[in-house]
C-alpha cells in the first residue's frame, strides 16, 4: 500500500516515539533509584502475590525467632535456678551422710541440721525465682503471686500447672518453662514406688536397710505391715490378711508382692514396720523430713534404731528428688538444644526467603543499567531523527 505521509502525522509520530522512550526511561530510573522492580501489583501481578506470601512467611520466621529468644531467656533462667537447686540438694545429701556416721555427736548434728535448714531455704528461694519482668518463674501461669509460701512450717504451692507454649515453627510449639508443680511438687516419696516407715513404739534394734523389687509388676502400691514376734515375721495387708510369714533371720530378705525388704538388727517382740506405695511428697517436705531425722539429740538405742529406718526412707526420697530435678534439668537442656536447632533452621530459611524476595522484587542492576543505556540511546536517536525530518520542507526552497 502506498501510504500518504502527512505533515501533522510526521510530527505526531515523532513526538509519540520520544514520549514512549521517555516513559521507559523514567521507569528504569525509578526502578534503579528505588531498587524495586515494580511499584504496584499491576506491573507484575503474579510476582506481587508471591511476594506477599513470602512477606508473610518471613514475618512468621521473625515471630518465631523472637519467640525462640524469649523461650531461651526463660529456660536459661530456669536452668540456672535448677542448677542451684541441684547443688543445694547434693549438699544436703552429703550432710545427711555425715550425720549418719556413728562418730557424730549431738553438737555436730546440731550444726549439720542448721546447715541443712539453710540449704532448704536456698531451695525455697530458687523456687521463688523471678524472671526479668518480675514474674515468678515457677508459678505456672499465676506469675504475679509468690508460688511457694512457708505457712507454719509447711511449704504450700500457690501457683498452677499451666506452662506457656510458644510457637517456634509452623506446627512446632515448645514449653517456655516448667511449673512449680512439675518441678517441686509432683515427686513421689521413697524410691518413687515404695516407701518404708517404722513404728515409734519399737523397742528392739532392728531397722530396714534396704527395699528392692524382685518383680515390680506384682507390686500393687498398697500399705503393708511387717510384724516381728518371737523370732518370726509376718507381713499383713490393710485388712490384716497375712501375705507372707516365716522365721526372721538378720539381714535376710523378706519377700512379698514383688518387693524384697532387708531388715538388720535384733528386733524386740511386737516391733513393726510399714511398707507402702509411694505418695506424692514435695521437695520441701522431703528435705524437712530428713532434717527432722538429723535434728534429734540424746536418743535411746531403740530410738536410734527407729531413726535408721526413717533416715533410710528420707534418703531414698531425697535421691528420688535429686533424680527428678536432674530429669527436669535434662528436659530444659534438651529444649534449649531444640531451640538452637530451630533458630539456625529459621536463620537459613529467612536467608532463603529474603533471596527469593529479592529475586522477585529487587532490580537486577546489570539488566537495568543496560536497559537504561539502551533506552537513552534510542531516545537520542529519536530526537536527532526528528530534528532531521522536521527540518525538511519544500517551502524552504520556495524563497
Amino acid at each position, binding site marked *: 500500500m502506498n*501510504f*500518504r*505521509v*502527512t*505533515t*501533522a*502525522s510526521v510530527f505526531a*509520530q515523532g513526538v*509519540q516515539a520520544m514520549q514512549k522512550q521517555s516513559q521507559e526511561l523514567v521507569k528504569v530510573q525509578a526502578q534503579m533509584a528505588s531498587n524495586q522492580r515494580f*511499584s*504496584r*501489583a*499491576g*506491573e*507484575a*501481578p*503474579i510476582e*506481587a*502475590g508471591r511476594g*506477599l*506470601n513470602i*512477606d*508473610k512467611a518471613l*514475618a512468621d520466621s*521473625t*515471630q518465631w525467632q*523472637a*519467640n525462640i529468644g*524469649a*523461650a531461651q531467656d526463660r529456660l536459661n533462667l530456669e536452668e540456672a535456678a535448677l542448677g542451684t537447686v541441684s547443688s543445694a540438694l547434693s549438699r544436703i545429701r552429703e550432710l545427711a551422710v555425715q550425720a549418719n556416721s556413728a562418730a557424730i555427736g549431738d553438737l555436730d548434728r546440731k550444726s549439720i541440721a542448721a546447715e541443712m535448714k539453710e540449704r532448704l531455704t536456698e531451695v525455697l528461694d530458687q523456687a521463688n525465682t523471678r524472671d526479668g*519482668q518480675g*514474674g515468678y518463674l515457677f508459678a*505456672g*501461669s*499465676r*506469675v*504475679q*503471686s509468690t508460688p511457694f509460701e512457708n505457712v507454719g512450717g509447711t511449704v504450700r504451692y500457690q501457683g*498452677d*500447672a*499451666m506452662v*506457656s*507454649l*510458644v*510457637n517456634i515453627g*509452623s506446627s512446632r*510449639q515448645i514449653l517456655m518453662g516448667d511449673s512449680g*508443680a512439675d518441678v517441686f*511438687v*509432683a*515427686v513421689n516419696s521413697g524410691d518413687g514406688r515404695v516407701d518404708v516407715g517404722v513404728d515409734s513404739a519399737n523397742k528392739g534394734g532392728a531397722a530396714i536397710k534396704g527395699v528392692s523389687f524382685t518383680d515390680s509388676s506384682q507390686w500393687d*502400691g498398697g500399705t503393708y505391715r511387717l510384724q516381728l514376734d518371737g523370732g518370726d515375721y509376718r507381713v499383713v495387708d490393710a485388712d490384716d490378711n497375712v501375705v507372707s510369714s516365716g522365721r526372721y533371720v538378720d539381714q535376710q530378705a523378706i519377700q512379698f508382692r514383688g518387693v524384697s525388704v532387708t531388715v538388720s538388727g535384733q528386733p524386740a517382740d511386737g516391733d513393726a514396720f510399714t511398707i507402702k*506405695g*509411694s*505418695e*506424692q511428697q514435695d521437695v520441701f517436705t522431703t528435705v524437712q523430713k530428713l532434717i527432722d531425722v538429723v535434728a534429734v539429740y540424746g536418743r535411746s538405742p531403740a530410738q536410734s534404731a527407729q531413726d535408721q529406718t526413717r533416715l533410710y526412707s528420707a534418703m531414698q526420697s531425697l535421691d528420688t528428688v535429686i533424680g527428678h530435678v536432674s530429669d527436669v534439668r535434662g528436659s530444659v537442656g534438651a529444649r534449649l538444644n531444640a531451640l538452637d536447632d530451630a533458630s539456625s533452621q529459621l536463620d537459613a530459611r529467612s536467608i532463603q526467603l529474603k533471596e527469593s524476595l529479592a529475586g522477585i522484587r529487587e532490580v537486577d542492576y546489570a539488566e537495568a543499567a543496560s536497559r537504561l543505556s539502551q533506552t537513552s540511546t534510542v531516545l537520542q536517536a529519536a530526537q536527532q531523527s526528528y530534528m532531521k525530518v522536521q527540518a*525538511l*520542507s*519544500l517551502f524552504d526552497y*520556495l524563497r
Partner: protein
Amino acid sequence: MADILGIGSSGLLAYRSALNVVGQNIANANTEGYSRQRVNLEARPLSGGSVPSGNGVTVRDVQRISDQFVVNRLTGQDSSLARVNTMATQTAQLDTWLSGTDTGLSKSLQGFFDAVNGLSANASSSATRQVVLTGASALTARFNTLQNSFNELDQDIDARIGEAATRISELSRQIAELNDSIAQATSKNAGQLPNDLIDQRELALRSLADQVGIETSLSEDGSINVSLGTGQALVLGGRASSVVIGPDSFGRMRDIRLSSGAASVSVTTQLSGGTMGGLLDFRREVLEPAVNELGSIAVALSTAVNAQHAKGMDQYGQLGGALFSTPSGTVTPARGNTGTATITTQVSDAAALTMQDYTLRFDGGSWQMTSTRTGENVALSGSGSQADPFRAAGLSIVVTGSPAASDQYLLQPTRDAAGQIKLAITDTARIAAASPLRTSAASTNSGLSRLSPPEVRDGANPQLLQTVAIRFTAADRYSIDGAGDYAVSADGSIDLNGWRVSVGGVPVAGDTFTLSRNDGASGDNTNALALLGVAEQNLLSGGRTTLSSANSALVSRVGSQSAQASAQLDAQTALSTQTQAERDSVSGVNLDEEAADLIRFQQAYQAAAQVVSTANTLFDSLLSAIRS
C-alpha cells in the same frame, strides 16, 4: 477574440480557487479533524463557435478527501480506546491502594498477628497487651481507610458518569444542529457539500464516541443518525435526545436514561464502550468484587477472632468480649416496595461468602434470591423467621413484618464491612489471653496421671465456668462431683460443659482433678496462642484460604486486572494509532504536497494571465491595424 479572453479569465478564476483551496489546506494543516480538500476542474464545453476549441475551465466542485469506512472504524476505536483507558487508569488506582506497602492490608494484618504473637510469648505484660490493641486498631484503621478510598472512587465514578451524560447530551445536540445546517447548505448550493461542517460533525461524533459506544448511519439528506448500544436513537436528523441520570430501583442515582421530551427509557444495561462504558465495566468487574472481597476478609477476621476471644478469660476474670465489632450486611429496600417487611442479614459462615450482591424478591408466596451479577437463582433454606432464618451464601437472613408481592431488597453482605469493622475494646486488661479454666490435681493423687489444660469448645455454654471435680474410679472411668460413672472416650478425652480435657498417664482409682475458673492466671497464654492460630485457619473461599492468602489473592487479582487493562490499552493504542494514521493518510495535509500544488497552480495562473495578456496584445494589434 473574446473567447480567448474568456478562456484565459476562466483559467485565472479556476486557479484562484485552486490556490484558495491550497491556502485553506495549508492553513488547516494542524487543525484537528480537518480533511484536506481538492479542487476538481472541468473543461467548459464548446458553446457553438465555428473554431473547434473549448470554452475554458470551470471549478466543478471542491472535494473533501475522506474515506467513510476508515472514519467509521476510527470512531469505533475511539470508543474502545476511551473504555480501556478508563479501565486501565481506574484499575491502576485501585491496584496502587491495594498493593502499596503503606496503603494495602498485608502489613497491618501481619502487624496485628505479630502483636498477638508477642502477647503469647509474654501474656502478663501490659506492654505487650497495649501492642495488641495498637496493632488491632491500626488494622481496623487500614480496613476503614481502604473502604473510604473505595467509596470515594465509587462516588467519583458517579460524578464522572454524570459529566459524561452532560457531555453526551451536549454533543448530540451539536450533532443534530450540524445535521440541520448540512442539509440546508447542501440543498442551497446544489451539489457542493459544506466540507467544513462535515468535518465539524465528524469531530463531534468522535468526541461522542469517546464518551460512549455509538452506532451511526447516514441518511439520504446527508444527516447522520446516531444510536446507543442496542439501537436507542440518540440523534435522529435534527432531533437530539439527552442522557440523564435518575434513581435506580433501589434509590441510588445510578440509572442512566435516554430522554427525549417527556419520555425516557433506561439504557444502563445496554451501554458499552467509551468513558461511560469503561466506568460501568470498571465498577462492575473490578471495584465491586474488590470491595466485597475486602469486606469478606474483614468479616472473616472479626468473626474468627471474636469467636476465639470469647473462649478466653480476661484479666478481670471474665470471658472475653468482642475484640472487633462485627460488620453487618447492607440491606436496601426497593423504592417501589409497598409491604412493611424489614430484612436483617448476618454472616453465619464467612467461608461460604461469595463476592456477590443479591436481590431478595417476594413473589407473593415465597422469597427468591438472585445474584445481581449473574442473575442466577440461589436456593434458600429455612423459613426466614428469627428462630429459623433463611440461609444462603453464608448469610442468615431474617424477615420481620409483612412483605407485599414483588417487594425487593438489595443485599450487599460485605459491601461496607471493611468500613464497619472497629476495635471494640480499649482496656488492655480486657484482652482474653488466658484460658477461662484450669485443671488442678489433688495432692493425694498417685502422681501417675495427668489431665491436660482444658480446651474450650463452646464459649457460650452457661455451665462453662462451673467448678467440676473429676474423680477416677478406674484408669478409664470417672465420676463427676462424686456422682455418676462415666467412661473416658476412646481418644482419651473427657467432654463436659463446653470444655474438653485429655487424660494422660494411667489414672489410679481415687485420683481427683478439679476444673475451676482460671482466676489470677495472668501469665497464661493459652488463648493468645489460640488467637494466633486464627491467622493460619482457612477461613475464606469455602475454607480454602487464610486471611493473608485471601489478601494476596485479592492483590494478585486486581493486579492481573490492572495488567490486563494496560495490555489492552497498549494494544488498543497501537490499533487506534494505526487507524488514525490511515485516516491521516487519506485526509491529512502534507505541506510538501501543498507546496508542490502551490507551485503548480501558481504557474498555471501565470500562464492563464499570459493568455489574457496575449488576448490583449492580439486585440491591440487589431486596433492598431484599424487605426493605421
